[in-house]
């Protein structure tokens, strides 16, 4: 993984010193809350319903064991003993004290981490495929490019007050695990006919009130031009993106209103003038960064470990776990292991200090000291030998991290909702917990198969309900918590936005309604079809009929 050199170190340390001074000025009263606000936001410090919240960046989701131990230490020392994985490869601490936040940042700097640009109308923490470097279908490790973008965007002087926040995601594989089509900019690593690395660049995707799928602005961008091209897009957006209405300020609205062709022309015009300047990436800088992401020293192993194959045959529970939580690896004899942070009935994304320490130890022992955080709020061990899988599985069970539900109905993404968020209409986490309990039977979950369930407490869509195969959106109905259901959303290369199926359900009925939708799928599915496939084939009518005519006619 990437290691800071003296420049990276100096930058985060200077930054901590600057922030410490700002906090001191706030505490002494020299700065009002209004003046302090933009400064704290630059360092990821929010003011929430009950307290401050600090959001720490985990660039492209990669963590070492040492870094995770530091996060555990921070949770224990400065918080109430837990953290929360977000849907953007960040971790949030919900109870830091203002005067201690500079110390937290100083501790983070020790392990090459920071909270820069995790909030505000800036370029946010760059996200990437959590399987970067190990996915079997990958063209190149997306983290090379995400790191290059991270450095360029960090404290970029021109883009600290954009019309709105700005999110960039990178995938190095055709199978899109980073939801690049729902980002302000999506970068897809490609090869051209000559075998050279470059990028397809997409722009204008996003969720929120107005979900939109990003459009391709450039089919192939040679790699040395990545930064100049991004700078051209950002400059055009900074100048002409709407600032009159917060809800129309994202670049997706600009692309929608002007059209991708016009935006494309403006960007090309800007880019033509800057592409051969200082931003053109030198080959040796690309090589320097690439070297950090070179494959680790793998052992030469058989493609299939015979010992593990036998164990799997004997132990049904283990086989089930392998089916949902273990993935193909680039390297023969290795596996990618998903750790489920969503055991039955637990709030999605929460993690305790003890759990973090335990995971750090396991990553050190079984995954070459490295792990990943996914945008689905789970964790990944990227370098596990198949011969270690059984032992690792047993140890993950002890930690409650081996629930065989990754990608299944109880692997729910939920926003903080009414329990934590001032904007919420309805609770998200308790509904997620009830759904998870309803489908607690793992055999049943495996029979249902892949089903992406996502819940947002309001229209801001932090729980990504638009891209859930089944999405729930909290709405307010005369002061009561209700949930609107959307069907057919998908975040990946087959991107689509879910459609509202009909009137909302009360909190009391919504879990039954979800179960009925699953029942319709189970009755109608064909061999090998996921929920999404069946929905796409048969359309919404059968689901609608079941919900509103057969099951809930009185309520609707």
């Amino acid at each position, binding site marked *: 993984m990437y290691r800071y050199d003296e420049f990276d170190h*100096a930058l985060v340390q200077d930054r901590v010193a600057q922030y410490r001074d700002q906090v001191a000025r706030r505490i002494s009263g020299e700065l009002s809350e209004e003046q302090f606000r933009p400064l704290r936001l630059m360092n990821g410090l929010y003011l929430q319903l009950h307290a401050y919240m600090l959001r720490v960046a985990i660039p492209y989701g990669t963590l070492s064991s040492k870094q995770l131990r530091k996060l555990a230490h921070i949770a224990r020392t400065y918080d109430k003993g837990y953290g929360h994985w977000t849907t953007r490869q960040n971790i949030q601490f919900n109870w830091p004290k203002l005067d201690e936040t500079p110390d937290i940042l100083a501790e983070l700097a020790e392990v090459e981490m920071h909270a820069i640009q995790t909030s505000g109308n800036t370029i946010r923490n760059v996200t990437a495929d959590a399987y970067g470097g190990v996915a079997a279908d990958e063209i190149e490790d997306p983290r090379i490019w995400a790191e290059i973008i991270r*450095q360029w965007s960090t404290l970029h*002087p021109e883009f600290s007050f954009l019309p709105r926040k700005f999110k960039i995601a990178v995938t190095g594989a055709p199978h899109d695990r980073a939801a690049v089509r729902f980002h302000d900019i999506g970068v897809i690593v490609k090869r051209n006919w000559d075998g050279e690395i470059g990028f397809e660049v997409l722009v204008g995707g996003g969720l929120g009130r107005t979900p939109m799928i990003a459009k391709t602005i450039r089919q192939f961008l040679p790699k040395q031009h990545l930064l100049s091209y991004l700078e051209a897009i950002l400059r055009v957006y900074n100048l002409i993106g709407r600032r009159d209405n917060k809800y129309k300020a994202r670049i997706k609205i600009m692309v929608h209103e002007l059209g991708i062709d016009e935006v494309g022309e403006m960007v090309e015009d800007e880019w033509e003038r*800057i592409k051969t300047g*200082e*931003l053109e990436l*030198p080959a040796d800088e690309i090589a320097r960064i690439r070297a950090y992401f070179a494959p680790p020293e793998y052992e030469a192993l058989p493609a299939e470990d015979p010992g593990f194959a036998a164990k799997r045959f004997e132990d049904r529970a283990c086989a089930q776990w392998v089916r949902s939580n273990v993935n193909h690896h680039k390297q023969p004899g290795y596996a990618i292991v998903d750790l489920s942070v969503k055991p039955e009935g637990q709030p999605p994304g929460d993690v305790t200090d003890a759990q973090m320490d335990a995971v750090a130890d396991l990553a050190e022992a079984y995954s070459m000291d490295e792990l990943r955080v996914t945008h689905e709020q789970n964790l990944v061990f990227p370098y596990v030998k198949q011969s270690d899988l059984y032992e690792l599985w047993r140890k993950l069970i002890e930690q409650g991290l081996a629930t065989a539900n990754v990608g299944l109905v109880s692997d729910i993404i939920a926003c903080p909702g009414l329990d934590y968020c001032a904007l919420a209409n309805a609770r998200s986490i308790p509904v997620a917990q009830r759904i998870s309990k309803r489908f607690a039977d793992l055999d049943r979950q495996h029979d249902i198969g892949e089903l992406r369930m996502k819940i947002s407490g309001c229209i801001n869509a932090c729980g990504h309900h638009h891209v859930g195969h089944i999405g729930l959106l909290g709405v307010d109905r005369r002061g009561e918590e209700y949930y609107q259901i959307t069907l057919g959303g998908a975040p990946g290369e087959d991107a689509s936005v879910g459609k509202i199926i009909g009137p909302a359900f009360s909190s009391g009925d919504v879990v039954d309604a979800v179960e009925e939708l699953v029942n319709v799928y189970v009755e109608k599915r064909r061999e090998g079809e996921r929920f999404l496939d069946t929905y796409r084939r048969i359309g919404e009518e059968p689901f609608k009929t079941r919900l509103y005519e057969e099951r809930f006619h009185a309520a609707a």
Partner: protein
Amino acid sequence: MPLLKQGAIVDDPWVYVGDDDDLPNGGPVIVTLKRWREDRDALMARGTQVGIRLTSEQTPGQVEDDLRHFGVVALEFPAFTDGRSYSNARRLRDRFNYPGEVRAVGDILRDQYFQYHRCGFDAIEIKDGETAADWARATSIITTPYQPASDGADNVLSLRQRRAAAGG
């Protein structure tokens, strides 16, 4: 409004002239885009320097051909959260190669010093009552920035190149 240049408060010889104000008899003036368009000939005939003040809705590109006549281009920040003038300053410096004074005016914050400086501003109208010493604290935190911008300063990308070239 005190004017900060290169870390010191300096005399500001420039006078703002509103759209309906009479032109003073002498001395350099800064006018709006509207006034410039209406009174271009009269302003040029005065024989003293002219500057222009652009709102964040306006762009230097709108006066591209006249830039050589201006001794100052003042770019407004109607609110510190409106970041358009950063991009306009960069275009002034990098695209139009404008060599004169680029002045930051409006809702100016000390903690944005590096942003102003790096985007090519070389003069800042600070708040009444603020001193050069107040600003010195903001300018004392020297960070080698990652990315090139319009200040021509060393940046991490260029320093790493130099290090690589030196074989280090």
